[in-house]
């Protein structure tokens, strides 16, 4: 039995199920459980306060504080799911995330568990440059953290559940344009990420990439919104008889070099697509990592399709130029294929 769902609903269902399963699980964040409110900025926790009045904790606007609170609660055996309204606000809390949440276990010589999940929406969506940043780059490779992303409702539910059951701190990045393309909180430019989801309990691995489309000529790597754009680009490329493999990298820390490596060995050409400034991107790490591991299989340099090195502009025209799109991916693929 399956049912069709968007990412926001899938996350909500996952949270509710995990809270039923384990009373140590609780949610914390701003405006997440206010009666008559919105269930967080993107409706993910909407209504959950009714079933769990004591475990949906609305906080003051104090990110550093409530991430610290979550850290302390996790060390005492609770399992917080921390909601940050916009990923950008992680900057306000980053000291707690990197200095405490990520390091406590190591600093204690392995005596501490930090079962904590952070959910952060990212992406440029007409809100100007302080509610738009792609924040993955700041956390990828931070020792002690695991970083993952969800690009469809199936993954959203399964990854959230897996994350809640882990004893390590996990950051889940979500994209504002993928929560749902219809209804109340739909955004202009939203992409449909609904899929059929099993009724039964399931989890999705926190360290595995997903091959979204098989192909033999080139490997396109992306995540979140870009994994959708990459698939669309691959479809268009079939017109030119280019057969692209598309991998949704999903897990950014650790990176699944097994899945990626299998593809690189096959295609010898790699395009990495990422929303966010190119310099210092996660794609840089993936490119360097692939070169180190599979350099001998590369037929040409790895190419990155990313945003310009600018803050996110407001004007929709500029924002659309900032955000990598299908034509740019298609062009990049053509380039690596021609270059030989």
């Amino acid at each position, binding site marked *: 039995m399956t049912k069709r769902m968007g990412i926001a609903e899938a996350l909500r269902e996952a949270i509710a199920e995990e809270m039923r399963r384990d009373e140590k699980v609780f949610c914390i964040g701003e*405006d997440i459980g206010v009666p008559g*409110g919105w269930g967080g900025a993107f409706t993910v926790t909407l209504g959950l306060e009714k079933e769990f009045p004591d475990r949906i904790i609305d906080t003051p606007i*104090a990110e550093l504080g409530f991430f610290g609170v979550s850290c302390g609660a996790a060390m005492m055996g609770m399992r917080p799911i921390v909601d940050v309204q916009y990923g950008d*606000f992680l900057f*306000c809390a980053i000291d707690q995330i990197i200095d405490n949440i990520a390091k406590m276990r190591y600093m204690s010589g392995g005596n501490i568990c930090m079962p904590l999940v952070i959910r952060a929406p990212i992406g440029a969506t*007409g809100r100007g*440059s302080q509610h738009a940043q792609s924040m993955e780059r700041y956390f990828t490779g931070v020792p002690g953290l695991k970083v993952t992303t969800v690009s469809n409702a199936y993954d959203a539910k399964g990854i959230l559940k897996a994350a809640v059951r882990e004893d390590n701190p996990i950051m889940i990045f979500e994209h504002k344009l993928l929560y749902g393309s219809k209804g109340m909180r739909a955004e202009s430019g939203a992409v449909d990420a609904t899929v059929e989801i099993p009724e039964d309990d399931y989890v999705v691995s926190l360290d595995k990439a997903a091959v979204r489309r098989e192909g033999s000529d080139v490997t396109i790597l992306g995540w979140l919104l870009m994994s959708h754009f990459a698939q669309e680009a691959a479809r268009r490329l079939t017109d030119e008889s280019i057969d692209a493999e598309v991998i949704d990298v999903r897990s950014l820390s650790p990176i699944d070099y097994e899945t990626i490596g299998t593809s690189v060995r096959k295609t010898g050409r790699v395009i990495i697509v990422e929303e966010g400034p190119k310099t210092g991107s996660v794609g840089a790490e993936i490119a360097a990592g692939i070169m180190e591991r599979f350099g001998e299989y590369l037929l040409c340099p790895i190419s990155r399709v990313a945003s*310009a090195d600018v803050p996110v*502009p*407001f004007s929709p025209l500029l924002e659309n130029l900032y955000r990598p799109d299908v034509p740019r991916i298609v062009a990049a693929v053509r380039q690596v294929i021609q270059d030989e």
Partner: protein
Amino acid sequence: MSIQEENNQANTRGQLPYEREFLLSLYERMVTIREFEDGVKFLFLEGIMPGTIHQCQGQEATAVGVCANLRANDFITSTFRGHGHALAKGLTMQEMLDELFGATTGCCKGKGGSMHMGNMQKGMIPGIAIVGGGIPVAAGMALAYKMEKSDRVATCFFGDGAVSEGAFHEGVNMAAIWNLPLVFVCENNLYGASTHISKVMRDTNIARRVASYGIEGRQVDGNDVLAVYEAAKASVRQCRKGAGPAFLELLTYRVTGHSRRDACHYQPKQEREEWAAKNPIERFGKLLKEKGIIDDKGLTTIKTRVLQQFEEAVENAKRAPLPGPQDLTTDVYV
């Protein structure tokens, strides 16, 4: 008797001790904000305008009453909810609408947008949309004024919700220990997003909170533009003569949603009705009429004029030049 009671009395008793022109300019400025916000909301709901918006209907008296005391080179900081502050600080509807339409003629060349309205020529840095983020920044502006030994004053607008942020604490404390010429203006509209102030403060008196930093905080009726004006006047004067900082808690209410499409179901109906009755524009209009400053027809004329200006500005904005690819990478570095 509290400051606002005193002022209320002063305002209803006898003649108003202000020039007619000044009073009407305050009124017109408030109407401008209201019509701008209502008009923009409509454009958003129609889908004509991109992005998101945070509006300030119901809070017009705070921005107008405070900014009437400031010079062009007295800078203010604002927030994601900055349209009212911008209009009060002298930005034009045109440059703001152009900005909202993402045009290069916008006050930030279309790169800022609704949450980052500002104009350096008019004494307003781009709005800082990180809650509380503008507070230390304003302290820095005031520090510069102090170091340059000028009598300029910085003014910092923020909401009740910002009081919970560490940035508030750090910024207010530094302003206090360094005696900075900085007027803090907390627009207490009872809510931070959907969260009522009573959920985030044990003692919801913000003026009392700041006393612990060694700053006297004053609560003022934020829907009484003259009360705000007088309180801000005293604060600004205090800062100009080097006896800053000053802190105003302006009691007001947001009668619109937190951002576009918020139906405000978390606000009790009765509370909304009570505050609707305190509409700062109607209230001031009534006072002006009582005092014989203007009549109904005059008020209508003002509103009509403002509406006409707004509509013209919208038409212009729709035709304003949009940025092209070459604009994406400019303005990052000097």
